């Protein structure tokens, strides 16, 4: 026998072992790759294929329109008063509030029913508390009267709301009136003595256990509510809270048989709060810029290159970008990195009269409020007034509209094609502003785009 080294059979396990060793080394050193330091090195060699551009010359169209109606019910707020726009743009704005009261009930009245026959009427007092909301000049007195509503306050057919345009008839004669110097930010209460005839009528029905006071339905049917009516010569509109601790009507009386004269009372609280609403209307016949506003947008070129917003009455500014999609034609593969809509208002003599913020909504060709415009973090864009401390008249509102612009550019089928500007809480606010459109010189209204594209 002798050893022979003729290639006969490869040592298979030897190859496998060898492969495993290599693989192990390879995987081990693979982990060790690392970089430390300044990665700006080499930037001097890099040539970008991406164009990043600033564009602020894109056409932006402004127009104004009047909303058909604004839901004004169930706001728990009685807006009472009127004001005349000192800038003569918005005319006279008035608000009448309607509040329904509940019966005090029959059972809880008096110490015992036997005494009621001797009850003597003292007074009927309505107490109001300020909500803090006001508009106009509260240094001037506010005068308003209260009227008994003589028509059932009901929703329009197939609606669950009442609107700024809704109204119901009330007695011409008032059941009370008052002139106050409003203190809207105070805790003070406003008390109004109501007509003795009404108070006596209430007490009589109470003493007799009248059915009309037996239930809410019966009472509301009998006493349909109170309208808070201000004449158009006021200088402010003031808000009062509507709830049982802020607004109530007390019927004061005493019993004749009492040895010691004890003042007794029953309280009427607001009810059917979803039927409470504010009727808001304005008279712009002497305001040339805004008198012809309708529910069809009027281009700013027809209104002195201004557009308008006003809460309460529902004057809305619509913004359109007719040539936005042509950007795609000139900048292939384009992406809007950031888009900002800057709007410069005409600053009134008192900067405080400008709304502290304006809201922005997506809209479609029907001028619907589709949804509020969010910033890139998904929060509603504030649209705060950026006050220019040096030159107050250069103060502007601005919104990040990147999402909007990319939505319009990204989806051809989108029916979103514009933006609406309205004051925050436009249903209960009388904030208003006059916006200069981009064609007005000395104003800075524009759409700013930062775009990236690759050609």
């Amino acid at each position, binding site marked *: 026998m002798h050893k022979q080294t003729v290639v006969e059979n490869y040592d298979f396990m030897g190859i496998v072992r060898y492969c495993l060793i290599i693989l192990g080394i390879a995987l081990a*050193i693979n982990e*060790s*790759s690392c970089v*430390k*330091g300044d990665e700006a*090195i080499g930037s001097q060699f890099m040539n970008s294929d991406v164009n990043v551009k600033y564009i602020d010359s894109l056409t932006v169209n402004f127009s104004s329109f009047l909303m058909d109606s604004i839901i004004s019910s169930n706001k728990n707020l009685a807006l009472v008063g009127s004001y005349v726009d000192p800038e003569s743009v918005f005319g006279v704005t008035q608000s009448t509030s309607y509040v329904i009261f509940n019966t005090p009930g029959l059972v809880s009245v008096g110490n015992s029913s036997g005494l009621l026959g001797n009850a003597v009427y003292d007074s009927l007092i309505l107490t109001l508390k300020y909500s803090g909301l006001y508009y106009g000049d509260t240094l001037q007195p506010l005068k308003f009267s209260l009227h008994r509503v003589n028509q059932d306050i009901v929703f329009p057919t197939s609606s669950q709301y009442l609107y700024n345009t809704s109204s119901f008839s009330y007695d011409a004669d008032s059941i009370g009136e008052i002139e106050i110097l409003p203190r809207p930010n105070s805790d003070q209460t406003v008390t109004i003595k109501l007509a003795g005839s009404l108070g006596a009528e209430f007490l009589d029905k109470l003493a007799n256990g009248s059915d009309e006071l037996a239930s809410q339905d019966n009472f509301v049917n009998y006493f349909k509510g109170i309208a808070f009516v201000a004449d158009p010569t006021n200088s402010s509109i003031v808000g009062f809270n509507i709830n049982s601790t802020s607004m109530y009507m007390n019927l004061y009386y005493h019993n004749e048989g009492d040895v010691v004269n004890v003042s007794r009372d029953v309280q009427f609280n607001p009810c059917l709060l979803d039927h409470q609403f504010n009727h808001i209307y304005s008279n712009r016949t002497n305001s040339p810029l805004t008198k012809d506003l309708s529910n069809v947008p009027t281009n700013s070129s027809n209104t002195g290159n201004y557009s308008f917003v006003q809460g309460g009455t529902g004057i809305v500014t619509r913004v359109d970008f007719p040539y936005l999609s042509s950007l795609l034609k000139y900048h292939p593969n384009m992406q809007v*990195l950031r888009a900002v809509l800057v709007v410069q208002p005409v600053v009134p003599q008192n900067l405080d009269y400008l709304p502290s913020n304006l809201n922005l909504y997506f809209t479609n060709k029907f001028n619907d409020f589709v949804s509020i415009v969010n910033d890139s973090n998904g929060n509603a864009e504030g649209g705060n007034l950026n006050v220019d401390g040096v030159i107050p008249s250069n103060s502007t509102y601005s919104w990040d509209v990147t999402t909007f612009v990319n939505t319009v550019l990204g989806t051809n089928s989108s029916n979103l094609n514009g933006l609406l500007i309205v004051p925050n809480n436009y249903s209960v606010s009388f904030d208003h502003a006059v916006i200069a459109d981009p064609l007005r010189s000395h104003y800075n209204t524009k759409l700013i785009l930062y775009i990236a594209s690759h050609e």
Partner: protein
Amino acid sequence: MNKQTLLVVLLSLIIGSAHAQTFTNSPYSYYALGELEPSDYGRTSGMGGVGIGISSGQFLNRTNPASLSSIDTLSFLFEVALSAKYTDYKTYNHGFTATNSGIKKLSVGFRLNHFWATSLGIAPYSNVGYNINQTGTIEGTNQSYNTNYKGNGGLSQFYWANSFRLTHSLSVGVDASYIFGSITKSEEITSSGFAGYYSLSNNYTPNNLYFDLGSQYNGKINNWDYVVGVTGGFKTALTTAKYLTVETATTTASSDIPTTVFNQSIPAFWGLGASMKSKSWTLAADYKVQYWGSLVDQNGQHIYANSRKIALGVEYLPGVSVPRFLYQRMVYQAGFHYDQSYLRLRGVNLDGYAVTVGVGIPGRRERSFMGMSFEAGKRGSLSNGLIRENYYQINVSLSLNDIWFVRPKYQ
């Protein structure tokens, strides 16, 4: 799992892990096909990477395909090379460091008959790996933004080298390879002021067959064996498809069909090398020129210059007749190479040089061999705002001979 399957899986894993690695973080890899692999990473790494005039024998020398002729008839060589590199990238006032490692070669070689020897393998051809931030300001505004440039990927090659012995002294060789791979160069625009981002990504897939040729002549003068070698290759165009992807915060636009297809060329080259070998000493030198200067880059810019490489190396084998210790059986190497780079940026050639030292450790069975070398070098320049790279590199190559794989048969 049968044996063949297991082997295929293991080899695929090795090749896969080799292919996945990026061996550079150099901003210069932004250019051309990336940073070209400078050498063979084989047994001669410690000798400055010489090889044109070196015959293979007990290892696989890819620098000149004609060198395979000297593989022994019974040999079946299996060779792997690994490398790890630490690089200090510097400009005048900034810097970063990077450590990279990877498999550099995986090959087998054997003799088919008395005149034909062959070798098959896979090796990286080029590497792209940069990550660079650039800040800019939008014209007409004070809005700044950041551009992040990233490159990764690289080219690999499957090669099949063949050597034919024409006479006792003269061999010719041809190395046929398929160069392929994928390079992605992207840039992404971001800014703290931007809601969106914009990312542009170009994916390139150059590929083509590539051939280079070589010849070696060996002879003897006095006690010195000498080898003279010559190599060369023609200009070859790599068909390069470019795929563009634009990705933004809201959309991604990419195409399955290439946006453009163009040729990215590898220029012609020639090289000359020689070595002399006595019982203990081997001296070798290489010179190689590649005509990059004839090319312009894809954007029509002249950023290339002809590249030249000069390499010198020496190897010493103590040659003790009855070695008692391992060090007496080891070989010791030293070398130097000077490289005129194919890149010429801002009027400056990105030249470099390096010194190398190495040892070769024989396996327990004579014909297996492990080479370890250390290389310290520099490339580039600080002038004109360029980058200078100082690097320190360790290479390990394993040449395993048939003994490992052959089960002796007793009769």
